[in-house]
């Protein structure tokens, strides 16, 4: 893939979290205060740097997220938050161990404000991470959770900055203190970019709903046209965040794959399954309604693999959406490489785009294999799940240079990935898109 760009952005990330620690060693450096205490302080500084850069990771900068696919960035955001929390806990335990007298201070009631800020910050970070890990178990809706998440993050980082201001050994030098505080506040200001500047830019590039088409299986296709601009230049298989029925400033947006051809950016189809509060409202959307898009994002695209000898798509349910975009684009381009689609659904009556897939077979060297969980009377195709046996029967395993794209519900993706692995398909040729980001 684009390994160089990946390495470049990893290096940028590491520089952003490590450089602030290096800054402490620039110019006149305070004397060491013992290995354990200095290790503890370094952990604290690193933890704050990690938490600060979290704002950047979720600011959705397209150039930086493109080589990875934004889903990896979100996973990383989640996992590195745990790393940051571990560093923070290590900081607290080691400081306490190196300065045992501090315990009395915490209990004395004479706690200085910067230690109170530290305690509050630690508590908020723990709360923030707990709420994120157990959001679904706590039955918290996505939108209120997201707002709370942002507010907690800002508060926790500001309190940590206050703690560093008040107690920061290594920052007695005024310019170092200014650089540290300024840098940390800079990360917090990114919220301003995300919540104000980005929506303002989206407002200047509105879209109109031109059609709402019912598909099978409680699914609807929303067609959008750009208003007064050229539309979205995207790669087939990528997705976009959709704001509908709200102002972009409301931060009420949902990610959807673009299902239409990348050769026609002037007309975008989003194929949306009714799965919850927002998706349930799609059927009532009237043509003429305003919509806003933030995108495109994602690395789930054939266009990252121009040298492939052909493509294999394995989709489940509405996971067909990004695959449709790739098939429609390939057809519009007159591509002649061999294509295979394995498409899993509950019943025949649930198979979205059944007819169009049939029509696409006339325009493309495309094999379509339907796999129904429950076959009907007279169905002589595959039934059951997309198991390794089913894959073995239909995939062009002997062919060299095929790239695999898997999209569907989580259990299906896991099953297919295991099956492909079992059949000896190298992992580097398999990529999957999960519709469950948060």
């Amino acid at each position, binding site marked *: 893939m684009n390994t160089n760009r990946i390495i470049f952005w990893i290096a940028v990330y590491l520089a952003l979290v490590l450089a602030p620690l290096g800054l402490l060693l620039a110019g006149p450096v305070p*004397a*060491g*205060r013992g*290995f354990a205490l200095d290790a503890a302080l370094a952990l604290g500084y690193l933890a704050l740097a990690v938490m600060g850069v979290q704002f950047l990771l979720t600011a959705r900068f397209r150039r930086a997220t493109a080589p990875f696919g934004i889903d990896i960035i979100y996973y990383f955001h989640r*996992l*590195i938050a745990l790393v940051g929390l571990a*560093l923070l806990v290590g900081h607290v335990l080691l400081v306490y161990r190196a300065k045992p*007298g501090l315990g009395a*201070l915490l209990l004395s009631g004479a706690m200085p404000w910067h230690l109170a800020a530290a305690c509050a910050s630690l508590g908020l970070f723990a709360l923030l991470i707990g709420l994120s890990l157990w959001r679904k178990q706590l039955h918290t809706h996505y939108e209120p959770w997201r707002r709370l998440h942002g507010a907690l993050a800002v508060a926790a980082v500001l309190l940590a900055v206050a703690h560093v201001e008040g107690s920061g050994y290594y920052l007695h030098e005024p310019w170092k203190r200014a650089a540290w505080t300024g840098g940390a506040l800079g990360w917090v200001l990114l919220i301003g970019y995300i919540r104000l500047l980005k929506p303002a830019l989206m407002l200047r590039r509105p879209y109109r709903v031109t059609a709402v088409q019912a598909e099978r299986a409680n699914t609807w296709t929303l067609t959008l046209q750009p208003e007064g601009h050229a539309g979205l230049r995207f790669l087939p298989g990528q997705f976009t965040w959709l704001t509908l029925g709200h102002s972009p400033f409301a931060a009420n947006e949902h990610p959807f794959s673009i299902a239409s051809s990348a050769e026609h950016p002037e007309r975008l189809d989003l194929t949306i399954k009714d799965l919850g509060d927002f998706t349930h409202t799609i059927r009532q959307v009237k043509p003429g309604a305003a919509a806003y898009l933030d995108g495109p994002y994602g690395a789930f695209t054939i266009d990252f693999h121009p040298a492939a000898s052909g493509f294999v798509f394995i989709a489940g349910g509405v996971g067909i959406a990004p695959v449709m975009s790739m098939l429609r684009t390939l057809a519009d381009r007159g591509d002649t490489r061999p294509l295979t689609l394995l498409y899993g659904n509950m019943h025949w009556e649930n198979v979205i785009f059944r007819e169009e897939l049939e029509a696409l077979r006339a325009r493309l060297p495309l094999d379509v294999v339907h796999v129904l969980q429950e076959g009907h009377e007279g169905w002589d195709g595959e039934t059951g799940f997309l198991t390794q046996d089913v894959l073995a029967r239909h995939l062009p395993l002997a062919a060299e240079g095929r790239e695999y794209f898997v999209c569907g519900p989580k259990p299906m993706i896991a099953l297919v990935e295991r099956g492909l692995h079992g059949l000896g398909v190298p992992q580097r040729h398999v990529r999957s898109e999960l519709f469950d980001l948060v």
Partner: protein
Amino acid sequence: MREHLARWLALTTGLLLLAAALAFARWQNPLEGAPPATAPAPAPALVSEGSAVYEAQGCALCHAIGGEGDPQHPLDGIGARLSPERIRGFIAPAEAMRASLPAEVFEFKQQFRDLPPEDLDALSAYLSSLR
């Protein structure tokens, strides 16, 4: 699969950050400056002399030992962290220690540089005995 990449990246980053913290601490505390683990305990007479100087000089205005004094800057266990020479550097800070203390504290502590060397020896022996 993609989760694995993210997991691997996060874990590697975490280990790298830990290594950076340890490297930072080692850089700041070269092995030769550390208090030897088996340092002989300072002579009891010197320690009690140092304790008296500590009282007399009002160190407890800013520091606490065993919960007595200002708890913001506890000195308990400092003998396990810093060598007597380093401790002395913090008591009566020379110019090179300017960056190690808040400016007003650095200025305030200049007066301790005029203490008789025996008192400073006794003070650092006393603090070194806090382990």
